[in-house]
């Protein structure tokens, strides 16, 4: 019996010793960031679809269009500047001089053309690929540092779609290198032009990078090495930051109190998302009799919600008063001040008025409704917000039958005939985007995926107005008139109370001041893939 146990222990010892050396907490030159997901963890821009790849692909690949580091939105990238042609049918990009790939090859217009075409190629499954395929007619190399893209029709936000500020596209890939080593070789030893070189990727565990040794336009890294860790459990991520095993960890608002208690600094990225609730298929005949079809009822439901309490208590103050649907302080093509005042007034907490409206609508002692509560990937705090909202509705007499569902199960219900959702409400979210209008198209235009106002076969007045308003914006070349048209669209949606913002969520991070110095995130961008290179060492810039 004794020998049997000793033998087994020796065997396990063997296994342990064989594994690679670990990340040493005390390594000063290493910046460690703990994330809740590494997406598909595949080192190829055309292979990952959701946001995470902005974390782990951004360090290696630069985007054709970059960031406006101060107030979010787009700015100069691989292309210093770009121009929309007079006829609006093409965009010309002028590349920054002297950019190099990690293997020394220069970055040229051929690489940009090759990259955009590779994103649109059949085997590419990146989420923006479909939009690009629809937008781009053809791409022309003018000279080594100039490339022109011809679009199908006028697409005002085409340039923005080639930036990580808006979508996840526009990564510039090395044409010569990929053509020599092939796609598989490229994925095993990826090369880009970003401030960090690829070192190693341990599936499901971590990805390691090495800083480039030359100055980089995005910022020259202060740390020699960068490691992104996959730590799925939030309390474990928090523990790693507190023990110094990680410098930065992504956390949800519910953990902010715990992080502060542990002496960590909190970095909040404003305007990363907006938690909303919306009603589905009210225009459909089977939902005709539903009390939700009365706009007064819908407005009452918004007035019943105390958004300040949700911000203070559910989100631990790591959230802001929302702008209108899918709009943020850094949004373009809309008059921000007007809508700030609107949201303060229209989204106020006024339960008395709510009850009054309900009574006027013929429901003095409330009614019963179904509310789907779910959380999209990366924002688990949507479920507690949903519970709080349901709680407020119950307080004004509405009987809420809440169904909490995992996102993978809820998402398909929102596509096709949406039979499970018609006549019900659900939580949803809008991502932090400078341009609100594409998001409006998805939800309010009859041909959109969610078509909450109406579908092509059944498009009541509200649906027709929305379609017309959207067409007006898209076709408009003149900025001032496009802003007015956008305002009209936002007005139309706001007054419908069918899709209502709850709070503006923030990306929250716990930071260990002894591991990394003071840094500012990019407004609207939750991921740090484009921030790591500007993070100072703790001694260089201590936290205030």
């Amino acid at each position, binding site marked *: 019996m004794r020998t049997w146990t000793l033998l087994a222990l020796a065997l396990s010892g063997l296994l342990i010793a064989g594994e690679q050396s670990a990340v040493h907490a005390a390594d000063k030159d290493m910046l460690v960031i703990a994330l809740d997901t590494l997406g598909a963890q595949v080192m190829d821009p055309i292979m990952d679809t959701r946001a995470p790849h902005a974390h782990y692909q951004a360090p290696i690949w630069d985007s054709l269009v970059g960031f406006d580091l101060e107030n979010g939105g787009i700015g100069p990238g691989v292309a210093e500047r770009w121009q929309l042609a007079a006829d609006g049918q093409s965009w010309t990009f002028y590349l920054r001089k002297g950019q190099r790939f990690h293997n020394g090859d220069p970055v040229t217009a051929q690489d940009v053309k090759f990259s955009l075409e590779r994103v649109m190629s059949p085997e590419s499954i990146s989420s923006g690929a479909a939009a690009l395929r629809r937008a781009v007619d053809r791409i022309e190399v003018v000279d080594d540092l100039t490339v022109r893209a011809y679009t199908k029709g006028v697409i005002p936000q085409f340039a923005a779609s080639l930036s990580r500020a808006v979508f996840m596209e526009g990564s510039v890939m090395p044409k010569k290198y990929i053509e020599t080593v092939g796609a598989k070789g490229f994925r095993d030893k990826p090369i880009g032009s970003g401030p960090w070189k690829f070192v190693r990727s341990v599936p499901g565990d971590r990805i390691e990078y090495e800083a480039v040794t030359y100055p980089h336009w995005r910022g020259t890294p202060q740390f020699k090495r960068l490691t992104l860790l996959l730590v799925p459990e939030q309390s474990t991520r928090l523990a790693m930051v507190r023990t110094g095993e990680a410098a930065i960890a992504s956390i949800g608002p*519910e953990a902010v109190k*715990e992080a502060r208690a542990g002496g960590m600094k909190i970095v909040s990225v404003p305007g990363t998302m907006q938690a909303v609730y919306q009603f589905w298929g009210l225009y459909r005949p089977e939902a005709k009799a539903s009390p939700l079809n009365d706009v007064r009822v819908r407005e009452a439901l918004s007035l019943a919600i105390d958004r300040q*309490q949700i911000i203070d208590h559910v989100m631990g103050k790591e959230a802001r008063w929302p702008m209108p649907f899918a709009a943020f302080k850094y949004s373009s093509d809309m008059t921000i001040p007007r809508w700030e005042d609107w949201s303060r007034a229209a989204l106020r907490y006024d339960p008395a008025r709510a009850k009054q409206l309900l009574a006027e609508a013929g429901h003095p002692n409330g009614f019963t409704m179904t509310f789907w509560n779910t959380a999209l990937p990366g924002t688990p705090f949507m479920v*507690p917000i949903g*519970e709080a909202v349901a709680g407020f509705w119950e307080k004004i007499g509405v009987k809420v039958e809440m169904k909490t*569902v995992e996102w993978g199960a809820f998402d398909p219900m929102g596509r096709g005939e949406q039979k499970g959702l018609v006549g019900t409400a659900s939580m949803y979210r809008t991502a932090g985007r400078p341009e609100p209008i594409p998001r409006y198209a998805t939800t309010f235009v009859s041909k959109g995926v969610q078509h909450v106002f109406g579908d092509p076969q059944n498009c009541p007045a509200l649906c027709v107005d929305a379609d017309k308003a959207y067409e007006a914006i898209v076709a408009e070349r003149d900025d001032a008139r496009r802003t007015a048209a956008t305002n009209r669209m936002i007005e139309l949606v706001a007054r419908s109370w069918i899709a209502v913002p709850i709070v503006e969520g923030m990306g929250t991070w716990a930071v260990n001041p002894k591991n990394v110095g003071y840094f500012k995130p990019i407004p609207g961008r939750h991921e740090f893939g484009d921030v790591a290179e500007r993070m100072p060492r703790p001694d260089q810039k201590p936290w205030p």
Partner: protein
Amino acid sequence: MARVEERIDVELAAATAADDASRPRGDFARLPWGSFVIIAVLILVAVLAPLIAPHSPTEQSLPDKLLPPAWEAGGSTKHLLGTDVLGRDVLSRLVYGARVSLIVAAVALLAGGGIGLAVGIVSGYVGGRTDSFLMRTVDATLTFPTILIALLLAVSLGPGLGTIAIAITVLIWARFARVVRGEVLAVKARDFVALARVHGCSHLRIMAVHIVPNVLNTFMVLLTLHIGFVIIVEASLSFLGAGIPPPTPSWGQMVSDGRNHIASAWWLSVVPGAAIMLVVLAFNLFGDWLRDWLDPRLRQV
């Protein structure tokens, strides 16, 4: 070859049935009053939840969120065991949670146990090819991720108590089937079954009259000892996001939600955790006592 298979499973049945059998030969097995009391209180609380709970389990008051229990600084007697992230009363949720956890446990155990009992008896009694096939199915079922079934059912049947109960049932039946089969083999080997067959009893009669009563006490014991296991599985499913959906309070969900506040709000997970431990302890003691009480061999020592 089948004979050898039987030997293994007879061993397992004896062992697993003895898994918790302490066979206190000659030991003074006094009635486990402690566990009777706890179980009685649990059932009472679950049944009379609306009367006992000071507040409604879903009533929120955000301003007084995360209040510590009354006896700690900052705690209020309005919320004896403090409040959670949404300001809901922890005590009330614990009380209603008892009801939910018991229902899930009851449905999962009776369904899972029932199927396991049936499969175990058939497999044990019939033996041969069907027996070894059923046992290999049991092996495979153990590798089946409960989370997949929980998620799958949530998608098709919609979230809720039923979904979780069915998901746990699929996990439970395999364990019951294996043990019951071993017990059936042990009983089948005894003389009185051969005797019954000699008297021309039909297989069904033999199973009903002879096999089931003898297997029943092991089955009863397994039921009590698996109460803890079911609640823990529900808690793990909640941790993975496939547990009983809010706003229905359940102990497993409460422990899972509390995990982010271990330092700043320890009571959120410790209170339901302690409740689970108490219930499991009570049912284990009750199971041990029940086994001795039911076990004919021990009665006339």
